[in-house]
Each structure stands twice: as C-alpha cells, then as structure tokens.
C-alpha cells in the first residue's frame, strides 16, 4: 500500500471511489480534500457528526479545539464518545474515534477552550480553509467570528460555518466567504438579551437535531473545499416538528458599519479579540457543562 499514483495510494482510490466518480470531484477534488485544513471548535453534539463525515470523506487535516471532558449526559448526542471514555478529553476521544473511520486523516486535538488568549494562535498554526463553529454559547460565537475576521486580513482566507441547535430547532449559516460576505456580527449585531437565553445546562436538546446540523456543517465544508459552494450568504433554519422543517433564507451582505469587518478607517478597526470582554458583551456565562441530575 505504499505505491502512490497522482498523490493517492491505491487503497485511497478504493476508499474514495464512490464519491470520486461524481461530477465536481474526481482526482482533483480528492486531492483538494486531502490537502485541506479544517478547524473544528467544539467536540460536542455538532462537532462529533461533523468530524465523522469530514474524516470519512478524506479531509486531510482536522484541528479540534475543546477543553471539556466526556460526561454521561453528553452521550445522548455526542456519538463519538462512549461510557468507557467518561473523563477523557473530548478532543482526544474524537481523535481516537476518527482513527477507526479513516486512518489517512491527521487529527490535531487542542485540549483547551477557544479563548481570547489562544484564538489567533490556533488560527495561525492551523491555517484552516474552513472553520466550523460547533460551540454552544453566544460569547464564543462572537469571539470565533471576530478572530476569523482578524485572521483573514493577513492570512489565507478561512470561511466560517456556524451552526447551533436547541430543543427541536437548529440553524446553520456560512460566513466570511469573501470580502462582501457577512460575519456573525453583520447578521446579529447585538447579542440577545440575557433573559432570552436559558442557561446552557437548562437547555434541552434532542440529540438527533445536533446530528442533522453537524452533518450539514460537514456538507458545507466539503462543498467549500471542492469549490462547489455557490458563495451565497444563506441561512438554513430547521424545526424538526414543523410541517416545513427546513427553510433557506438569503441573508444580507457585509454591513458597512459592522463593528468587526465594517468600512472603518484602519485605526478604528477591531484589532485584537483581547480588547473585548465577550462575557460582558453578551451578558451570558460561557457554558459547556451539562445537566447534572
């Protein structure tokens, strides 16, 4: 299995054949996937299915950032973890599970929360083509978007795919696709009032809803890497119980007065996420801990 033809081993041709035959993929597409780098922030309900399908499809380099460890209450949705891994770092657990799905993929676990302190360094070292926001709280969502905006001013552009799920509902939006595309702040300039956010541990979530959203994040990511994305700033909203469960909406472009990526003069631009207190901005505690019964 050491023999390689045009950058893929014979076993990779066998493994990926069922999608390499598709229009829009082929050998060039598989090579794009293999050389791509994806940064997944959050190794929970969204991160598990997202990484699962990125790995199976042969995305070459995946960095997973999460400081949490596995708890039993995660297991109704975080399908790459298991009882035997309770107490293990989630990012390590995903690395272990992914190695069974596809040993050709390199997984880089980062065993820390994504914070104002490490945000720029993680983006700098992973140089992602796509960032998946798989986190579970508003503070980190603004932080990730701001960090990507700052990163994209000087580095290879990373597109941001942000998803969320609560109860029977989910949402996904692709951001920062190009200079005219919105960031997270363009779409939600002001955070919701604190009383409208139930604390993370109180939020119920039907596990399979995170499964759908995380799988759709992987799909967006694969389309972006393959150049099959139409570049539209669309948001898809999902309600598992509605008679029209999915709606896809065309969203605004970048806002010229956006705090992060607006048209301000250079010296007025947001320069560092360390200048912002994200918890104070959203008024919400970070979370990530789960319901303790």
């Amino acid at each position: 299995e050491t023999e390689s033809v045009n950058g893929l081993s014979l076993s990779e041709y066998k493994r990926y054949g069922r999608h390499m035959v598709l229009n829009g993929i082929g050998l060039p597409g598989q090579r794009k996937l293999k050389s791509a780098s994806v940064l997944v922030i959050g190794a929970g309900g969204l991160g598990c299915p997202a990484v699962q399908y990125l790995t199976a499809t042969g995305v070459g380099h995946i960095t997973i950032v999460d400081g949490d460890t596995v708890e039993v209450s995660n297991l109704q949705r975080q399908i790459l973890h298991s009882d035997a891994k309770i107490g293990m770092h989630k990012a390590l657990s995903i690395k272990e599970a992914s190695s069974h799905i596809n040993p050709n993929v390199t997984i880089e676990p980062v065993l820390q929360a994504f914070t104002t302190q490490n945000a720029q360094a993680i983006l700098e070292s992973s140089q992602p083509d796509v960032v998946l926001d798989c986190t579970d709280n508003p503070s980190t969502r603004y932080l990730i978007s701001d960090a990507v905006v700052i990163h994209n001013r000087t580095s290879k552009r990373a597109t941001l795919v942000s998803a969320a799920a609560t109860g029977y509902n989910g949402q996904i939006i692709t951001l920062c696709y190009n200079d005219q595309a919105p960031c997270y702040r363009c779409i939600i300039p002001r955070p919701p009032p604190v009383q409208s956010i139930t604390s993370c541990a109180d939020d119920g979530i039907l596990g399979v809803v995170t499964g759908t959203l995380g799988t759709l994040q992987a799909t967006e990511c694969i389309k972006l890497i393959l150049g099959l994305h139409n570049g539209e700033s669309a948001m898809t909203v999902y309600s598992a119980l509605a008679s029209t469960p999915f709606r896809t909406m065309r969203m605004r472009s970048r806002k010229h007065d956006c705090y992060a990526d607006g048209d301000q003069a250079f010296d007025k631009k947001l320069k560092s996420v360390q200048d912002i207190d994200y918890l104070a901005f959203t008024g919400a505690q970070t979370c990530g801990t789960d319901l303790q019964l």
Partner: protein
Amino acid sequence: MSVTRNLKVEFGGGLEILFNDQRQLKITLSADGRNPNVRDLIKKLADEHIQERKELFVEGETVRPGILVLINDCDWELRDELDGELEDGDLVVFISTLHGG
C-alpha cells in the same frame, strides 16, 4: 382610505412559545392611507398576539436583538427593514437565533 394586506406569519427557533405555541398565523393588517409595513406588523403582533413576556419579542418599535426577520425567504435588511411595505400573500418569518450545540 384604509389599505389591507393578508399575510402569513411564521415563528421559529422557539419563538412560537411566546405565541401560544402557534407556529403559523394568518394576519390581516391595515393602515390608513398608505401601505402597511413591517413596523405595523410587529406592533400588531406585540399588541394583539402576545400575552406575556413581550420584551422577549419587541424592543421599542422593532424586534429585540437576536431575532431575524425574513420576508419571502429573504433577510428583511434586503427589503427596507421596518419600512418595508408588505404585499398580499407575503410570508414573514420571525426566527430566534440559537446558541446551543
């Protein structure tokens, strides 16, 4: 002279809880001597269709932060936001943005 519009209104992202767990409403909206707009619709919903916790839907004359307004599957920012005039049969969707994962 009063101008009247028949609209379909939908709620998502959990916002339906504020509206008696109704996901869809049919709303007849009128304005005097001009076309009804989104500002009128938000006022009517807040005045006539929410019993409690109005502040989880409105802030002043607009929706609270974190609620997206979509008209015929387009962000309302592409259609003049509060001043956007509504046509008969328009579908207006109010979505609460989510943060869990």
